[in-house]
């Protein structure tokens, strides 16, 4: 196994490439962190007990992925700040998750729609880093993909059930897709200097190409269910502008840390 240090202090890692890699890891970690916290809000109140356990478990998986990505980022930065510091010690504006994850929990259909849009997008992105030239990221992504495969299955099962049930289930799903659709593709917001990442083989393709793959995969499902495909997103501030629902969530998940930064938990 490649050690994190040896791979990340390689001489070919120029400051520009290091910064670009930082941006890639931070965007992936923040996505997992925010959707993990957002979905954990269902713990105790999901529509049925089994789904309560399933959704809480999915949320835990996402936080686990976020933790591993933050640890990788902490090793890359090597500036004395650990994964928790990166996860919790930022202002809301400093988070780089996609705006798709910024809509608040909403009802169950919102959660299903968000999970479906995000999980399919995330799995396409993971595919693009599965053969990354950065060993530690490649090794981590190999493990993450094994769990994300189930996330996509679970999200797809719910998505298809809501879409296929006329009346309230489908109406709520359509309303959720109308609210989330315009932000769905923000997962593919181009990263700063991403051409350097592609050139170095850290990711296989630019975000725009990964988005095209994602759309091609989504189209058959959306067509089969007669649902509107997510429109082109405004990517200018896809990961930098966060609204009120995220400020509320941030306040929740940083509460303990701000109250007692050295608390052991």
């Amino acid at each position, binding site marked *: 196994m490649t050690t994190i240090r040896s791979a990340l202090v390689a001489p070919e890692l120029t400051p520009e490439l290091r910064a670009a890699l930082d941006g890639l890891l931070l965007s992936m970690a923040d996505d997992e962190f925010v959707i993990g916290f957002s979905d954990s809000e269902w713990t105790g109140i999901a*529509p049925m007990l089994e789904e309560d356990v399933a959704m809480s478990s999915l949320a835990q998986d996402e936080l686990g992925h976020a933790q591993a990505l933050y640890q990788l980022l902490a090793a890359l930065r090597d500036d004395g700040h650990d994964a928790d510091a990166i996860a919790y010690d930022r202002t809301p504006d400093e988070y780089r998750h996609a705006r798709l994850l910024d809509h608040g929990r909403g009802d169950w259909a919102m959660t299903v729609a968000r999970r479906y849009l995000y999980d399919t997008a995330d799995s396409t992105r993971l595919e693009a880093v599965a053969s990354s030239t950065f060993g530690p990221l490649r090794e981590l992504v190999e493990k993450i993909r094994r769990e994300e495969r*189930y996330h996509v299955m679970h999200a797809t099962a719910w998505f298809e059930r809501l879409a296929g049930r006329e009346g309230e289930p489908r109406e709520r799903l359509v309303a959720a897709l109308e609210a989330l659709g315009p932000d769905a593709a923000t997962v593919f917001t181009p990263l700063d200097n991403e051409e350097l990442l592609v050139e170095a083989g850290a990711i296989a393709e630019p975000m725009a190409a990964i988005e095209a793959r994602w759309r091609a995969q989504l189209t058959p499902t959306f067509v089969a269910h007669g649902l509107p495909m997510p429109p082109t997103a405004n990517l200018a501030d896809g990961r930098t502008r966060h609204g009120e629902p995220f400020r509320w969530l941030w306040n929740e998940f940083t509460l303990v840390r701000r109250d007692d930064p050295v608390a052991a938990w």
Partner: protein
Amino acid sequence: MTDQLPADRGGTAESATSLEPWEVFRQEKEGDPMRHGGSVMAPDAVLAVHYAREMYSRRQESVRLWVVRRADIHDLDDPDLLQPPMDRSFKKPGGYVMREKLAAAREQSGRAKPKGKAK
């Protein structure tokens, strides 16, 4: 897991009636028999499998799961069929004493009692 949804879950009556119990069987390690683990409520087989995975394998305690719709299980609990009133002790192994016969057979063949676990 109960068969009835708690009052605070399940939403409309229609959605509640579409849920049904599924029995979950799990194999703890390769080669073990499938053992009943418990049950989950789910609207169909796909979600039943997902929920069985969450309930009975998320701590790596299973290598295989089966889910069976409870309605597909045929029940036999008739005491007249299962616990007959007549003496059936002759059908039990205890009703047929082997020890002396085995000892005699061994003596006849000149072989000692096998040591250790029987194959």
